[in-house]
């Protein structure tokens, strides 16, 4: 088992772990506000243009969205399992599970990319290729602008998450963690749950709103 010492500014490894987790929570708080700004803009404009937003929402690809939701939820479960194993010092198991989660994240991105591709084809990309006309065109364009920003930023987070999980998987495989020291796995887990939760908010706003009540 590797001999791991705390960095100089900490007294013990426990303190180092505790500080790292606390830091991650605060970072996630800033992330919430980051998405919060976009959600605020979305809410405001949905109030201003209810019909346009509903109309735009009906153009979203609900099948892909739903499949992606299931994928993310599954990956979140897998990651929770990995953290659980990490606490017990089961390095190989952690590596496999994190690898699976990273794979699921990649599938998510792939589907998302396919969705973007279809939207490009249908002329739903504001500013670059937007072909809707009619009374709600402007509102729809706004919807899609916010859609691309929110899912784009979320996708960026997913990409980082995949990188983190892959790195952690490799390190776990090589035996870098033990039941005494597995903070990086724990933090990666926290991060991935956050990415998942953001999606849980985005999913109804994007895919369901326009379809409720027809």
């Amino acid at each position, binding site marked *: 088992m590797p001999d791991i010492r705390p960095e100089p500014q900490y007294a013990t490894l426990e303190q180092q772990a505790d500080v790292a987790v606390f*830091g991650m929570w605060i970072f996630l708080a800033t*992330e919430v506000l980051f998405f919060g700004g976009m959600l*605020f803009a979305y809410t*405001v404009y949905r109030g201003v243009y209810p019909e346009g937003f509903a109309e735009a929402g009906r153009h979203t690809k609900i099948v892909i969205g739903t499949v992606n939701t299931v994928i993310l939820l599954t990956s979140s479960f897998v990651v929770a399992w990995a953290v659980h194993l990490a606490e017990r010092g089961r390095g190989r198991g952690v590596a496999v599970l994190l690898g699976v989660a990273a794979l699921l994240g990649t599938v998510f991105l792939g589907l998302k990319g396919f969705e973007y591709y279809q939207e490009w084809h249908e002329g739903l990309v504001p500013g670059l290729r937007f072909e809707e006309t009619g009374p709600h065109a402007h509102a729809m364009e*706004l919807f899609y602008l916010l859609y691309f*920003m929110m899912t784009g930023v979320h996708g960026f987070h997913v990409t980082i998450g995949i990188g983190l999980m892959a790195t952690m998987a490799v390190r776990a495989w090589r035996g870098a963690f033990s039941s005494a020291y597995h903070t990086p796995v724990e933090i990666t887990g926290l991060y991935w749950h956050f990415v998942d939760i953001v999606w849980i908010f985005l999913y109804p706003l994007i895919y369901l709103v326009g379809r409720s009540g027809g």
Partner: protein
Amino acid sequence: MTATSPDRAVTARPAAQPPNYLTEGGSTLRSWLLTHDHKRIAILYALTITVFFFFGGAAAAMIRLNLVTPPGIFAADTYNRLFSIHGIVMVWFFLIPSIPNTLGNFLLPMMIGAKDLAFPRINLLSWYLFVAAGVVALFAVIAGGVDTGWTFYTPFSTMYSNSYVILAISAVFISGFSSILTGLNFIVTVHRLRAPGMTWYRLPIFVWSNYSTAIILVLATPVLAITLALLAVERLLQVGIFDPALGGDPLLFQHLFWFYSHPAVYIMILPGFGVISEVVPCFSRKPIFGYKFVAWASVSFTAVSFLVWAHHMFVAGMSVYAALVFSLLSYIIAVPSAIKVFNWTATLHKGWISFDAPMLYALGFIGLFTTGGLSGLFTANLAFDVHVTDTYFVVAHFHYIMVGGMVSAYFAGLHFWWPKITGRIYHEWWARIAALLIFVGFNLTFFPQFILGYLGMERRYHSYPPEFQFWNILSSAGASILALGYVMPLFYLTWSLYRGQRAGANPWAATGLEWTTPSPPPKHNFDKTPTVTRPPYQYRPEPEPQDAQGHA
């Protein structure tokens, strides 16, 4: 040292200095640029923001030069660029990082008995982000200039302004990440790395105020970031988010922008409060009056500051009722400010006051901040605000708070902790002269602007009706005195590095953990992690006797 403080032990050139953060770890450029030591990073920040301060100051000088005569010497467009450079640099690259990233970075871990910040590498990263942001900003203003002012109001910034807006926004966006990371580091450090016995109510006020600032940084900056991102997208893709001509809503921008920028005002002033709360007790030799009130006043700023943003938008087309609510809430924010000012004056009352340079700057702060704050009550008043909005009254108001307040506080802190940071003492007489020049110069520059504003001179115009010229000349004359005052420390502080006397651990006979370690401090601050047994500010009228090393 000085006649008023014969008690302060100054050791005359000891044989050799013990190893300290400046000598340990090498003095190569590389050892500085890759350092993880919060003290060295603080110095990197200090050097960078000094450059920005004088860059922004040069733009201010040209603005004042232009306003000496009514037609002005610059074209309107040049003038617009000048005040935009000035505002952008001063707000984003001087005021916001000034105290937290320099003095805060240096002192916060020492004040709580920690060896470093919680995340030293992230600390270094945030400096690099800051420098990168600064380079982008300077490139934007030099390559093409920006004429939107520091607020980037839409639709002007998205539709009409020249194309360097996106670059300037990116700079602010990047520097925002630097702020967030610093804030995160501070919060975690204060929560988790306090020395044994350092309870919350034993924290120096400087720590409380930087902690509160950190919370605002972490919670408000992301909203700004996303607002700027929306702005950039609107500009790039020409989709109406904020621009009414494209079906967007300019008020949304203002709501989002001020949701950040009003709290940002407290990012700019709270750390200043912290400095003053250290300096005033030390030079009055009294514990700070009402410690808990002062501490909680810092925190309540944080809370209230998120509720009052819309007082910047009274004339932007809000409903009357909303305006009334925000006007009322804005009065509430005067309460913690008043608590602070009251507590400082109560601390001064019957104190054993000595007028050393840090104290002169601090007293200047109290006077100027109070003036600025009172004028703020005028602008929070709905009827009056409508009269003075976008006039020089507002310019005077925020300069009293931000320049008279924050810059004075920064100087007070710089002079107070200079011996700790460098191990040297500067020439007290020159420091006092500079403090006085700054105070006089400042008032001469900005008081006339209250009058100009009241008379109706509008801001952001390169020319004005001739009847305003008298007050403008006065203001520009004051600005040159002020500039002299700001340049002086550059010389006597630099001089002290080579010729100044050695300071000893505690030249001001101050309380506080940072004074228990040698000056300059060793690499990990304390040879042995201290255990805290006393509340802060245990000052007595007579300073405690000290041995030659300055240890109490």
